[in-house]
């Protein structure tokens, strides 16, 4: 019983010693290294540090971006765009935003209409996910890029009918300026309209005809004679052949 009392006494003493030791150490440390009073130079350094830190944080928050999108709505201070991935981008317009229309010198926010395709360069805020526009231009130089299978060919009109994976058909006008290439067996070769055959896989790059949305004026055509068709393209080709053959 006596020994138990001694043990408890020692435990208590050890804890008290530990606690007092720690407080003594803290007191000693405080006594040895007193906080020096800041000099004017130190204050300036601290200010510069704060400025740099806030600038770095700002730079991390804002990113330069260039987007292309179709106008969903436009007001004097804001444009809502839908980009190629069908994501909505809110573009803020301020007094520093520059508008550059290729055809007109007085291009401005009032000239922007719904369904226009615009290219906007500006500062993208990652937190608010809004783009502060610095340059707004109509994106008229971007060609269409269509892939499909040749379902019909007209040597008379120098045109092709191609069907895409979803079965949608487009008439392709081949012009004298159209650059035609062929890819086969690992080689890209110069080609021509006469070498393109029905049933071949093609990629057409060009601009939609202003009069018809189903016609594209090709600037480049690349065809792949040796490449297999996807299941969607096979179906589109079969559907195209059926529609072309006369019904009995």
């Amino acid at each position: 019983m006596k020994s138990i009392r001694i043990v408890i006494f020692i435990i208590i003493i050890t804890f008290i010693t530990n606690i007092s030791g720690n407080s003594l150490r803290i007191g000693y440390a405080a006594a040895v290294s007193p906080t020096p009073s800041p000099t004017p130079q130190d204050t300036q350094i601290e200010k510069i540090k704060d400025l740099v830190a806030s600038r770095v944080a700002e730079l991390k928050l804002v990113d330069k971006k260039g987007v292309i999108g179709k106008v969903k709505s436009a007001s004097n201070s804001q444009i809502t765009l839908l980009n190629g991935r069908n994501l909505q981008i809110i573009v803020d317009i301020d007094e520093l935003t520059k508008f550059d229309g290729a055809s007109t010198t007085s291009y401005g926010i009032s000239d922007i209409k719904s369904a226009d395709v615009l290219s906007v360069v500006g500062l993208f805020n990652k937190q608010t996910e809004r783009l502060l526009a610095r340059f707004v231009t109509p994106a008229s130089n971007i060609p269409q890029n269509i892939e499909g299978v040749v379902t019909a060919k007209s040597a008379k009109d120098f045109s092709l009918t191609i069907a895409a994976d979803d079965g949608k058909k487009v008439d392709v006008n081949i012009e004298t300026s159209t650059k035609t290439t062929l890819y086969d067996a690992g080689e890209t070769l110069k080609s021509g309209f006469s070498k393109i055959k029905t049933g071949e896989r093609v990629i057409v790059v060009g601009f939609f005809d202003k009069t018809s949305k189903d016609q594209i004026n090709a600037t480049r055509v690349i065809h792949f004679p040796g490449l297999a068709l996807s299941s969607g393209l096979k179906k589109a080709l079969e559907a195209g052949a059926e529609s072309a053959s006369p019904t009995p």
Partner: protein
Amino acid sequence: MAVAIGLIVTTLIFFLYQQTKTIPNQSNKNAGSQNSASPTKSPNYLTIDEPQDEALVDRRLLQVKGRTHAGDIIVVSTNQEDKVVHPTSDGKFAVSITIDAGANIIVIRSIAPDGSEEKDSRTVTFSTEEF
């Protein structure tokens, strides 16, 4: 004797107390690593590492880098040109392309020998304007 026992007990209590301060998190770590399984590759896949979508660049010559199946062919189309390349044996590819001034849409297709295809695109704007 009693003093020695007291010291031993105190030391033991102290060490036990210290042990309770640090809880080993090994089991949690293991559980986390099991959950984050490596992504499985689909029959057709195409990953574009460069350039970033909606990037603003000050050079007209760019590299399109990515990964796909080794047997596929890669067709990269820009506003100006089309490039057809084969990936390396590990499926990696890199294509040098030239872009127009202003906005560009780069279309990348990976076509498998059976005709199936994966497609992705990148919007890249060339500008040297300071703002």
